[in-house]
């Protein structure tokens, strides 16, 4: 039966973002390209579809399946693994604006498909890369919206100042008490998941307390939050990871990258074991990344920045839908 125009009536076919915001997006993209071009980084493109996927406990990779056949692969949650394979192959400094997918992420600041700006600097550490992220914001901002000097706080300083406890020593009971004192109820089933308690405190106590107009880096995370960052030995050891907050949101996440192939394989295995315990899907780990690292990943720092959120900040938007032509729900 042919589709009648009547059955399409009332469908929200129009873009969610205004044409003005779409023009701002296009200008931001041009400035981004100019910024990296002027600094000699190579723009690269890597696949969205892969036979391997992220193992992170809290990332849900979507599956691509043939309509009447087997699974073809996984949609990437970030272009990190293939970009590191390029680094191991000697590509030097690289950048890319990638469309990535994360299932079950939807809200005021989340869309399941979004744009991630990711770049790597060979031979750099986290501090140098934070400087460059600041310079990037200055270069692409329309002028004036983003203060020129960013604030830097260690994870411990931020929690002591805004959550009222030491994230390296407090037990789950003390974290729970701090949350409840600030009017945040403890979810059922959080139990002894200390890392998740810290995540909740970061999102509900620290993040809202930061000045939304002031770019703020939080760095030196607990080892439990290392993800793919190097761990600097010490007492306590800290992960050389940073996050940038602006506009009341997390805007970027960077690492002094782990380069040790054996350690990488151990972290993948640990993720998968944790997934098994929770009854979650266990996606295939990226063995090609481990092989590339065994060949030799140069020392480097890398950062991923939420491009849509940057547009939100520059456009003064409060919902991610306002900066996407067609957010999920209109596609």
């Amino acid at each position: 039966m042919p589709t009648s125009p009547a059955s399409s009536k009332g469908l929200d076919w129009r873009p969610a973002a205004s044409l003005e915001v779409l023009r701002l997006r296009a200008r931001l993209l041009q400035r981004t390209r100019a910024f990296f071009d002027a600094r000699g980084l190579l723009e690269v493109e890597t696949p969205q579809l892969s036979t391997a996927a992220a193992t992170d406990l809290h990332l849900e990779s979507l599956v691509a399946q043939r309509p009447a056949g087997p699974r073809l692969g996984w949609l990437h949650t970030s272009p990190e693994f293939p970009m590191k394979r390029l680094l191991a192959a000697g590509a030097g400094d690289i950048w890319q604006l990638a469309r990535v997918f994360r299932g079950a992420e939807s809200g005021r600041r989340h869309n399941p498909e979004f744009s991630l700006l990711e770049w790597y600097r060979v031979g750099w550490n986290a501090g140098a890369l934070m400087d460059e992220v600041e310079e990037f914001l200055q270069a692409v901002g329309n002028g004036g919206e983003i203060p020129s000097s960013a604030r830097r706080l260690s994870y411990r300083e931020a929690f002591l100042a805004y959550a009222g406890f030491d994230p390296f020593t407090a037990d789950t009971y003390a974290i729970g008490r701090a949350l409840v004192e600030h009017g945040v109820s403890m979810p059922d089933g959080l139990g002894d998941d200390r890392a998740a308690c810290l995540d909740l405190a970061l999102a509900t106590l620290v993040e809202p307390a930061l000045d939304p107009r002031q770019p703020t880096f939080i760095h030196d995370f607990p080892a439990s939050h290392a993800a793919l960052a190097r761990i600097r030995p010490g007492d306590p050891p800290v992960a050389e990871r940073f996050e940038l907050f602006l506009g009341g949101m997390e805007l970027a996440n960077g690492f002094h990258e782990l380069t040790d192939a054996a350690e990488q394989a151990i972290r993948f295995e640990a993720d998968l074991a944790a997934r098994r315990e929770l009854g979650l899907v266990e996606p295939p780990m990226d063995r090609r990344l481990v092989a590339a690292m065994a060949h030799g990943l140069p020392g480097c720092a890398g950062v991923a920045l939420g491009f849509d959120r940057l547009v939100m900040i520059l456009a003064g938007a409060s919902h991610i839908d306002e900066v996407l032509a067609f957010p999920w729900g209109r596609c």
Partner: protein
Amino acid sequence: MATYSTNEFKSGLKILLDGDPCVILENEFVKPGKGQAFNRVRIRNLKSGRVNEKTFKSNESVESADVMDTDMQYLYYDGEFWHFMVPDTFEQHAADAKVVAEAKDWLKEQDLCQVTLWNGQPLLVAPPNFVELKIVETDPGIRGDTATGGQKPAKLETGAVVRVPLFIEEGEVIRVDTRTGAYVSRVK
């Protein structure tokens, strides 16, 4: 028992928490980068009317509350229960004072109200937004005084007391906004 995942949370969704039916007023998805995701919701307990904040780990499931809003006609009060009827089916429900609560001051026989049913039992009664009721007691009207803006109390046939302009007389029918208890106009 039907359940909702936190992914399906949105305002208006009715869920069961600690055995009580609740409605979600606001839902916010929060997720620190690479960390555990949470849904922070503001909920109203439909039994107590209290509003609370509650945090869920994302992807958890919550039981749905079998709560339904139905338009019903108010029939009569028997001294203990207020009786309502679904006009199409003639199905009748009796609600006690706790359920009817403040709505009882506005209930006039035959008026259509919204009755919220939980597992088939009345949970809440909302009167129509506007009702037309007769004044049974007020000071004598000051004829012609439509300009000074003065007001006086007036008792309505249902027992509610509202403030009305000075020119309104006993025995007149007036229109009242039940959400604010404010006088709207005279009904000829």
